[in-house]
């Protein structure tokens, strides 16, 4: 803790710490010094001059936002002199500001407006404005946001936040004096600038000058009701406030509170502008039943009745293992718990899985073996203080945008060293000391070579290895052969860069590894994860702050769905179904006979449908017809399965194959919790009323359970969480009343436990950390003469997963209308392909037509496609070959060819 300093403000004594400003201390203690250009996320500039205060011993008033506190300082915030100055400052602002509060969307929240009232500005200053005809500006025609120079007070907050926090450097002031205006470089339209549509600029604007375009006219700030909930788009789990106009039952805009955990008021494009799906006219409003080949409206009784009849029949004919369920990383913890409980206790099989299989199954398998727990070891907030960050196989700025803010902050503000290992030239490379552009599928060779260097140069942490780990000797053997020179041949990364990376990582006081699907989605996924765990243990970078091994989880609740046992081998809390004691515990808790046999995984379920051993499939909130590898095969299975139940908010690509479709609540209509990537269990709250006859997911599951004769009854989501706490020690201390304002991080063992910021402190979950000797293996498929390219698939900032939700937003659609394939310009030239051309990409499994995006983001010989787009579905091409341990398919590498159309 830094030194405590005492100051007197308006006659009262307060304590602050060195470096804090007078304004910080005042605001923190409830003294509202007027301010317009201040945002705690930004460096103070002292430009609006409203926060002036008198300081004893100083002649002139000083701006309190730029004034650091000093011991014994005596400050007065409101004197006649100060009031007079503030009034003049405000009058000058209104000289340029169009005071049109009656029709302004920000009415009721605008700071300028409330100060104008507080300082009782006269009519004459409110009515005279220099404002003339609105000229086109950088936001003209943009569907996400609008800038109105007539309401801009030139405080510079938007420009600064774009530079300092988002670091997109899209905005600037142009011209001087009265002609000053916010714009982009060269006045480019916003979507053609470097803007990433995070909306941070809107969030900081103190007036109505910057506003969400689609919110205009939909309700003034004073009439909007805010509901705090958790963003549904990714594993960061940003806290968002849905601003609803109660008269219209409509989400008007999304805001976030500065200071909230984990995102400090920052969001990304999806959280800020992607909520149009909630009130979308295509939402499902009644159950549908397939009659004569067509899906027709039906009542709940008909739908539930039919499901009960079919499931009972199939189970009695072919046994419980002929039924399988896909739970959902989009749904709440409570939904997932109830779903897996129904499949296990109601149906009697462990055939339950969800799409974590497709993203982080190898993480869970690998880290559980090495450390005893498969989750992110540290917290999001710790990245900004790490001395070295090693990002491998994670395109953080696109897939976890708000975490990327912390990475950039670490580098730019705190001088961390960043190493990026990625086949593509992702945006983070700009901030990196080293970019290792390894050939897709060669991660083990790269990491082993780094370990080889560390051991060779005696940089490893012998004390840590000795005291806290086991199996080190075998691992030394395994990496010995992988010299940097040998790795260079395999990975194409120069040997010296590997050496440099190894030294940088090993020498840092605290080194954090961040990884994601570039590591996991391989047939060697578990090996990749194990070698990262090796690397961290080798240098003692686990079990301490700002270090560790951090898998970033993709979907909003993929962590929770795993925690709650939507996996075929474990009950909630990663308790093995094959462990007799645990099995008995759950039979007792759930009062049912349970199967002791591990169930089938996602891809295995589809293969079992092919051979007829699975006859019924219950899919809750997933879209395998677009998300799973080798789509032709998956879709055939969806067609073939005898009875398919789809429970969703939209008639997704998968629901179109269903026999019964059940309309569910969206996240904005339900109560519950999501668990974010840093293991934080956070509240989801109801903000709007659901459409039509839609029902909450867990209630639908309970309705079905009752109809098949195994009733499960809950009053509300909170009661389900209480049951979760009673069966899963990880969540033992979680209850709704404890996470009202801030979520708790598991493990949280009992009601007095404060949650866990980082794991494995002092001791690993499994006792000793275990090294695993891992040797390099080739990917399942390599390019050859007929299929000369390596194709990788992945995410893009603007879209989410299969696009069912994000593609409903006009603002997002304007920026990211359709899919594409990235190709190096030299390869493009060879094939006579120009940027924007339609081309065909094919593999042995299928072909798709998409647009070429020509440039240097990928190296020669490689292709990259985002997988969100139904009109050019990348997963037609991907390989469904599996990692032998985690059963995760190899989305990241397959051999492909291209053809101009």
């Amino acid at each position, binding site marked *: 803790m830094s030194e405590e300093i005492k100051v007197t403000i308006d006659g009262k004594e307060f304590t602050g710490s060195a470096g804090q400003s007078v304004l910080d201390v005042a605001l923190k203690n409830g003294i509202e010094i007027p301010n317009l250009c201040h945002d705690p996320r930004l460096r103070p500039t002292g430009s609006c001059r409203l926060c002036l205060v008198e300081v004893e011993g100083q002649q002139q008033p000083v701006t309190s936002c730029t004034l650091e506190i000093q011991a014994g300082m005596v400050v007065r915030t409101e004197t006649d002199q100060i009031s007079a100055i503030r009034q003049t400052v405000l009058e000058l602002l209104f000289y340029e500001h169009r005071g049109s509060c009656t029709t302004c969307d920000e009415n009721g929240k605008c700071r300028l407006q409330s100060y104008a009232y507080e300082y009782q500005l006269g009519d004459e200053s409110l009515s005279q404005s220099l404002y003339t005809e609105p000229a086109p500006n950088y936001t003209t025609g943009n569907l996400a946001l609008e800038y109105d120079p007539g309401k801009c007070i030139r405080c510079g907050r938007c420009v600064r936040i774009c530079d300092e926090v988002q670091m997109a450097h899209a905005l600037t002031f142009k011209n*001087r004096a009265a002609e000053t205006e916010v714009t982009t470089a060269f006045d480019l339209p916003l979507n053609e600038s470097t803007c990433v549509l995070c909306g941070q600029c809107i969030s900081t604007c103190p007036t109505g000058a910057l506003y969400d375009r689609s919110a205009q006219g939909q309700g003034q700030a004073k009439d909007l009701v805010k509901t705090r909930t958790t963003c549904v788009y990714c594993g960061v789990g940003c806290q968002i406030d849905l601003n609803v106009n109660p008269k219209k039952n409509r989400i008007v805009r999304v805001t976030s509170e500065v200071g909230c955990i984990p995102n400090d008021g920052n969001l990304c494009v999806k959280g800020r502008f992607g909520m149009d799906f909630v009130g979308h006219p295509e939402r499902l409003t009644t159950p549908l039943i397939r009659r004569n080949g067509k899906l027709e409206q039906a009542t709940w009784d008909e739908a539930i009745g039919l499901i009960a009849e079919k499931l009972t029949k199939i189970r009695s004919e072919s046994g419980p293992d002929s039924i399988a369920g896909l739970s959902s990383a989009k749904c709440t913890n409570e939904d997932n718990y109830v779903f897996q409980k129904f499949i296990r206790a109601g149906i009697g099989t462990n055939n339950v899985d969800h799409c974590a299989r497709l993203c982080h199954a190898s993480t869970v398998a690998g880290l559980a073996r090495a450390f005893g727990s498969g989750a992110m070891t540290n917290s999001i907030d710790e990245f900004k203080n790490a001395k070295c960050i090693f990002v491998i196989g994670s395109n953080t700025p696109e897939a976890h945008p708000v975490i990327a803010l912390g990475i950039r902050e670490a580098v730019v503000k705190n001088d961390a060293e960043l190493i990026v290992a990625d086949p593509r030239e992702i945006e983070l490379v700009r901030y990196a000391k080293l970019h290792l552009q390894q050939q897709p599928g060669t991660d083990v060779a790269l990491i082993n070579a780094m370990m080889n260097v560390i051991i060779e140069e005696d940089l490893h942490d012998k004390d840590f290895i000795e005291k806290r780990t086991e199996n080190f000797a075998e691992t030394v053997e395994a990496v010995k052969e992988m010299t940097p020179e040998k790795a260079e041949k395999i990975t194409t990364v120069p040997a010296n860069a590997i050496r440099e990376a190894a030294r940088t990582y090993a020498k840092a006081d605290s080194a954090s590894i961040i990884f994601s699907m570039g590591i996991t989605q391989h047939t060697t996924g578990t090996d990749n994860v194990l070698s990262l765990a090796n690397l961290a243990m080798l240098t003692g970078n686990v079990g301490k702050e700002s270090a560790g091994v951090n898998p970033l989880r993709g979907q909003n609740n993929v962590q929770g769905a795993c925690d709650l046992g939507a996996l075929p081998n474990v009950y909630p809390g990663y308790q093995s179904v094959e462990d007799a004691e645990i099995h008995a515990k759950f039979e007792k808790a759930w009062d049912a006979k349970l199967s002791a046999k591990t169930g089938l995984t996602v891809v295995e379920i589809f293969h079992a449908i092919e051979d007829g051993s699975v006859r019924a499939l219950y899919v809750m909130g997933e879209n395998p017809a677009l998300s799973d590898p080798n789509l032709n095969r998956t879709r055939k299975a969806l067609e073939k399965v005898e009875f398919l139940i789809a429970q969703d908010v939209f008639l997704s690509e998968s629901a179109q194959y269903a026999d019964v479709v059940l309309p569910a609540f969206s996240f904005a209509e339900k109560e519950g919790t999501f668990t974010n990537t840093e293991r934080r269990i956070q509240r989801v709250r109801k903000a709007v009323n659901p459409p039509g006859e839609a029902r909450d997911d867990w209630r639908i599951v309970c309705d079905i359970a009752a109809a098949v004769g195994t009733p499960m009854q809950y009053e509300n989501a909170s009661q389900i969480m209480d049951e979760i706490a009673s069966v899963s020690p990880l969540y033992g201390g979680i209850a709704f009343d404890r996470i009202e304002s801030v979520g708790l991080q598991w493990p949280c063992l009992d009601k007095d436990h404060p949650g866990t910021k980082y794991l494995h402190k002092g001791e690993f979950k499994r006792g000793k950390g275990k090294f695993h000797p891992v040797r390099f293996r080739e990917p399942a498929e390599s390019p050859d003469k007929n299929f000369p390219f390596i194709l990788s698939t992945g995410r893009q900032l603007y879209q989410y997963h299969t696009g069912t939700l994000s593609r409903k937003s006009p603002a997002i659609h304007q920026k990211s209308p359709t899919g594409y394939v990235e190709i190096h310009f030299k390869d493009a030239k060879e094939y006579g392909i120009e940027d924007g051309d339609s081309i065909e990409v094919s593999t042995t499994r299928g072909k798709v037509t998409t647009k070429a995006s020509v440039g240097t983001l990928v190296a020669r010989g490689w292709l990259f496609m985002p997988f969100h787009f139904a009109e050019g579905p990348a997963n037609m091409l991907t390989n469904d070959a599996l990692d032998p341990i985690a059963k995760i398919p190899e989305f990241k590498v397959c051999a492909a060819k291209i053809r101009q159309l």
Partner: protein
Amino acid sequence: MQSKTEASLDKTPALKICESMGQITSDSLIPILQQIQDAYGYLPAEILSEVSKQTGLNANQMYGVATFYEQFHLEPRGRHTIRCCRGTACHVKGGRQIINAIKRKLNIEEGETTEDMQFTFETVACLGACALAPVMVVDGVYYGKMTHRRVGFVLDSLETVEKETT
């Protein structure tokens, strides 16, 4: 989407300038802009984008600085720059007529350049020679006590010189 790299202007001079700057800091911004303007006559957006890519200096900052200082120009300039005063003293002495005469003569508005790229016309708040009002400055040479007939003479003489030398 990825960036395209089609060039219509020659980037070599810009690349040379970037190279000659050595270690780039935020203090390099103004000198770079000055040298680019010397090399190209103005600050072309596509060249600045390239400079941004080469140096890591952000394009938004370049644009902010370039629009802040009068010395920088984002549009191509004519061979001759005519600046006219719209300050109070000049205004009182009929400066407006002088401005109008120039506009009519060259058929352009304030801030524009003639199509043949001969003249760029600008107005300024005060040229600091109020005793000579109304004032016009051509390529740095002051012409005081202007009348609209003298506007014709001065501009015609420039054009004639032009024709004789070419």
